[in-house]
């Protein structure tokens, strides 16, 4: 089957996110964009990536994309199915998981994540979001965290309305002060480019733009004065193999 070489910004984002995962590492996978990217990585360069879902499936090998984190296929293809208390106490808390893979409703300069409420008043929110789920402790305890989220001024804000999951708090030293044992977010992948925390300031900095995206366009879609790395690169475009594998996951019937 030939692959249509034209790709979308969402496809570029998912492929860039998948490339960030290393084979044979253990990855705690949130549903949605992270799950798509993690499953794509397993189908491309990281066939032995260990997928851990918070429903208690260790080493799931789904042959299609699950709709939820607890689909039966995840249990049937797992190395082990464990209880939810065990997931958090035995596996996540002691730092056994290499990468936590999260998304966000809001994210700020220091990669703090909000999935709780939009609006300043917690008790009278503009929008009530689903809440924390596993994210606070995933962000705290995984060895590192990767965030994948579509970019807009509404999502990328100077300060999140509610800190659900801590990135770098208010800046350098905060993670250590809070006793958070993982490194924190090492990369934020969007549909426009890739941001990474500056090693001195911890502030998210633009390190790559996706093909065809200008730095101005990234800046227009972010809610703070974004720093740009002097070593800014352009992401390699999706390969035919990557696009074929991704579409096999998201559109197995080939409707596209």
């Amino acid at each position: 089957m030939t692959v249509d070489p034209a790709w979308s910004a969402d496809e570029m984002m998912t492929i860039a996110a998948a490339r960030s995962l290393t084979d044979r590492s253990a990855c705690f996978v949130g549903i949605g964009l992270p799950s798509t990217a993690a499953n794509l990585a397993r189908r491309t360069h990281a066939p032995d990536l260990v997928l851990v879902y918070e429903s208690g499936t260790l080493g799931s090998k789904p042959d299609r994309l699950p709709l939820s984190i607890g689909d039966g296929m995840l249990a049937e293809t797992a190395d082990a199915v464990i209880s939810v208390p065990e997931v958090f106490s035995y596996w996540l808390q002691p730092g056994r998981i290499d990468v936590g893979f999260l998304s966000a409703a809001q994210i700020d300069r220091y990669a703090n994540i909000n999935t709780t409420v939009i609006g300043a008043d917690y008790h009278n929110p503009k929008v009530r979001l689903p809440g924390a789920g596993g994210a606070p402790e995933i962000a705290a305890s995984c060895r590192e965290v990767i965030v994948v989220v579509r970019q807009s001024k509404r999502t990328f804000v100077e300060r999140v309305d509610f800190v659900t999951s801590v990135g770098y708090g208010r800046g350098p030293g905060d993670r250590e002060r809070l006793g958070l044992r993982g490194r924190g977010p090492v990369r934020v992948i969007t549909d426009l480019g890739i941001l990474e925390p500056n090693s001195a300031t911890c502030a998210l900095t633009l390190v790559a733009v996706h093909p065809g995206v200008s730095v101005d366009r990234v800046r227009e879609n972010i809610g703070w004065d974004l720093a740009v790395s002097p070593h800014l690169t352009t992401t390699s475009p999706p390969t035919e193999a990557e696009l074929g594998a991704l579409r096999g996951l998201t559109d197995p019937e080939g409707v596209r």
Partner: protein
Amino acid sequence: MAEIVSLREGIAELVHDGDTVALEGFTHLIPFAAGQEIIRQGRRDLTLIRMTPDVIYDQLIGAGCVRKLVFSWGGNPGVGSLHRFRDAVQNGWPVPLEIEEHSHAGMAARYVAGASGLPFAVLRGYAGTDLVEHTATIRTVTCPFTGEVLTAVPPVNPDVTVIHAQRADRRGTVQLWGISGVQKEAVLSARRSLVTVEEIVDELTPVPGAVVLPSWVVSAVAEVPGGAKPSYAQGYYDRDNAAYQDWDPISRDRDTFTRWLAERLGVPVGIPS
């Protein structure tokens, strides 16, 4: 020893107005039929506990059964937000909803403490999050051995826990397998428990990785085939993903939802408000 009852009897005997109730299930084996029977019987002022309140909790909240929700993630898995839950939090419809919000790690620890008969659970959690400021049941404790400051959360001890399982024997011993979530802890932390099952059998043959709840820790068992639909029961039926997607438009609008309540559950229009 568990009593074998009908679903109607089980809810009538075990779930009372004002009770604290946990209907647990982590995507799999969600006790939908039991939750809808609670709506039919018109229970009010419930405090509901659940790690992942989803569509059945949206229905209970929209039907006006719930005063307070203790939870860690409230959404329609794989689809989006819960609109009845949102409407209750943002607009107090049909009745105001108090919330007590945790993370999964914290809720799981609270169930373990409840099942263990302990006054608190300890974990590394919540540090630096705004949950600490808004949730009174998140505190700290100092380790007596190392001096390290850790997070403490109190147990949950529901008046009644309701779960769905694949099967039980005639004495009421329950067996469930696949993704088992926090159901064992939810039953063991509760004062009373009701388990709905796909089938009651003469003998429970062993299943790898199964959770077994002996008859003497379960209050009642009701045979309710399909009682977890539209979630799934591994070995019996698959998740009806379309039903979860269909819930989104039904629940967005108060009138559509109220009509759904009337048509599907026989709740007279106007009851919720």
